[in-house]
């Protein structure tokens, strides 16, 4: 039966080539845009290198000071704040404190080279999962001793040394300070803002005063929970600690409360992007809005397809009449039409996947976002299948229902009186 439906579906597609083209174009173009956006989303906040154990990771990157008139200001927390209130937490497996990204200057001959860099502790390399191409991460004793050692990204090494191979043991001079290269890692996409850099150096070698006792500074923390299920326990412990933090005394300011949260990568990214420091991270609204927009975006070609499908009923009334006359139930006709429609949307979906892969390739080679290698991974592929199914059902149910309700005598006469 399925084969018979597919045969008919194929013939119907070939019979009305123009409508088929319009339908396929609508489906594939819509899907391409959705997939490209989803690939970018997944690449930014999905479980990708180096945040592979994403469900166990929590990020702390914004600290807000509240006064009577509301928020007095927000900025990243300081190193000393994180050392005092985050490092001693008992529930996480590991805690890493590092600076948010910045740039450092190096010279290659007379050429000035700007490198994105990050100061980190030794735990940074244990909390995250970098791919080491050669060498090793720097160790806790090296960080404690403020050893001038560095880990470079592949492209950082290539830009400075002209090669990414055999550079371990060589010296890189940044901001007029010499560092010995101990390791080279695979490039991290710039979209992974909390781990990305081209040069990582021990936080104890920072030229800034990391011992400054004020709460606000240039740092962030990454926490690794024992398990995904344990992450909320870590968040609760941190919330308890935060509730006991003494409010800082700053001249000219009356501060009532310190507000700071540990959240998932998505939660922290949404907070940072929308500068939201309140108790609600805004992820639910964010996801609702983008899902709504996605659905709305799919609705337009779906409505177009509904329209085309309804008009096709006129063409096929004789067939529907015959099928009913020979014993097809309404359910059987609904299934037939849905399968046909899913077949069409699946074709459009395959085209859309191809177009999305092409568009992502173009984006990758354009260098718009540094070191980015967007690709269609299994998550994106499965989401595409889900979207195709949703699209097929969205555009097929109403015409299928209308088709099944066609009055058989009218249908055999070629009319569409339902």
């Amino acid at each position: 039966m399925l084969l018979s439906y597919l045969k008919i579906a194929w013939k119907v597609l070939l019979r009305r080539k123009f409508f088929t083209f319009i339908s396929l174009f609508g489906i594939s173009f819509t899907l391409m845009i959705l997939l490209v956006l989803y690939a970018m989303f997944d690449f930014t906040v999905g479980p990708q290198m180096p945040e592979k154990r994403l469900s166990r990771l929590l990020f702390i990157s914004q600290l807000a000071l509240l006064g009577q008139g509301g928020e007095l200001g927000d900025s990243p927390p300081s190193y000393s704040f994180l050392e005092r209130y985050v490092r001693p937490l008992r529930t996480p497996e590991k805690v890493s404190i590092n600076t948010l990204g910045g740039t450092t200057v190096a010279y290659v001959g007379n050429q000035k080279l700007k490198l994105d860099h990050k100061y980190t502790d030794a735990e940074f390399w244990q909390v995250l999962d970098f791919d080491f191409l050669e060498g090793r991460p720097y160790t806790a004793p090296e960080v404690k001793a403020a050893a001038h050692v560095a880990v470079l990204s592949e492209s950082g090494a290539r830009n400075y040394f002209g090669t990414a191979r055999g550079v371990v043991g060589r010296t890189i001079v940044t901001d007029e300070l010499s560092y010995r290269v101990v390791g080279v890692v695979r490039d991290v996409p710039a979209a992974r803002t909390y781990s990305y850099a081209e040069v990582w150096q021990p936080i104890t070698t920072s030229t800034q005063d990391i011992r400054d006792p004020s709460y606000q500074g240039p740092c962030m923390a990454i926490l690794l929970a024992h398990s995904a299920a344990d992450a909320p326990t870590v968040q609760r412990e941190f919330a308890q600690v935060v509730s006991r933090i003494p409010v800082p005394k700053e001249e000219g300011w009356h501060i009532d409360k310190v507000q700071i949260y540990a959240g998932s990568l998505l939660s922290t990214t949404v907070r940072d992007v929308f500068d939201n420091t309140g108790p609600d991270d805004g992820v639910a609204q964010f996801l609702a809005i983008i899902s709504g927009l996605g659905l709305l975006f799919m609705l337009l070609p779906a409505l177009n397809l509904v329209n085309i499908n309804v008009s096709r009923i006129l063409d096929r009334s004789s067939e529907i009449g015959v099928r009913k006359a020979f014993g097809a139930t309404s359910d059987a006709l609904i299934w037939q039409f849905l399968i046909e429609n899913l077949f069409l949307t699946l074709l459009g979906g395959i085209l859309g996947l191809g177009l999305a892969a092409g568009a992502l390739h173009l984006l990758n080679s354009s260098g718009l976002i540094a070191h980015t290698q967007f690709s269609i991974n299994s998550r994106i592929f499965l989401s595409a299948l889900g979207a195709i199914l949703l699209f097929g059902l969205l555009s097929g149910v109403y015409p299928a229902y209308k088709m099944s309700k066609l009055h058989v005598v009218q249908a055999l006469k070629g009319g569409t009186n339902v």
Partner: protein
Amino acid sequence: MKATPLTPVLRLSEIEKVYQTRDIETVALNRVNLTIYKGEFVSIMGPSGCGKSTLLSLMGLLDEPTSGTIEVNSRPVESYSDKELAGLRNLKIGFVFQSYHLINDLTVLDNVELPLLYRPGIGGKERRQRALEALDKVGLSARTGHFPSQLSGGQRQRVAIARALIGRPEIILADEPTGNLDSVMGEEIMALLLGLNQQEGTTIVMVTHDEQQARQTERLIRLFDGSQVG
């Protein structure tokens, strides 16, 4: 081997069919009483618009009467659910239409198989086998892979008859099966239907305009303005 015409296949009692639009009420059938017995070949005649096709649609359970009762297996059709009615059409009735109503996108073989698609428990192999047998009966074994557009009118009607036969229905309802054919092809189709009735005992009800064809059947029902006149 012909069955004794005593077992009723279909019984219509006091059937009325009225088409109602906002301004006009058209009586298509008026108090029609009719029983079709197993193995009969009955023809229905009458001028255009007298209700012949409406009567055939009602007998084929494709439409509902405005009043009156249609009984299948001595049970009124209104007591069947939509799903059961679809099952009855599939098992008991085969249709042959004046304009063939073959599906142009399907081959001859796929067209003939169609009724068995809706019959549970019949696999693809058996469907194919029975379609080939039905096509053999109508003399079209050599055309199984053709599409309807590649056949003559007479051949298309043979395919339609094969499609009506494949489900081994108790009754074939043929609505002017020779209406679109020239006289030679019309005679061929008529001979085929007579053969099915006389050799295989298939019950046939045929609407026709052709007096000569009607005379070849066992019983003739005449309709005029929706009423039975003979």
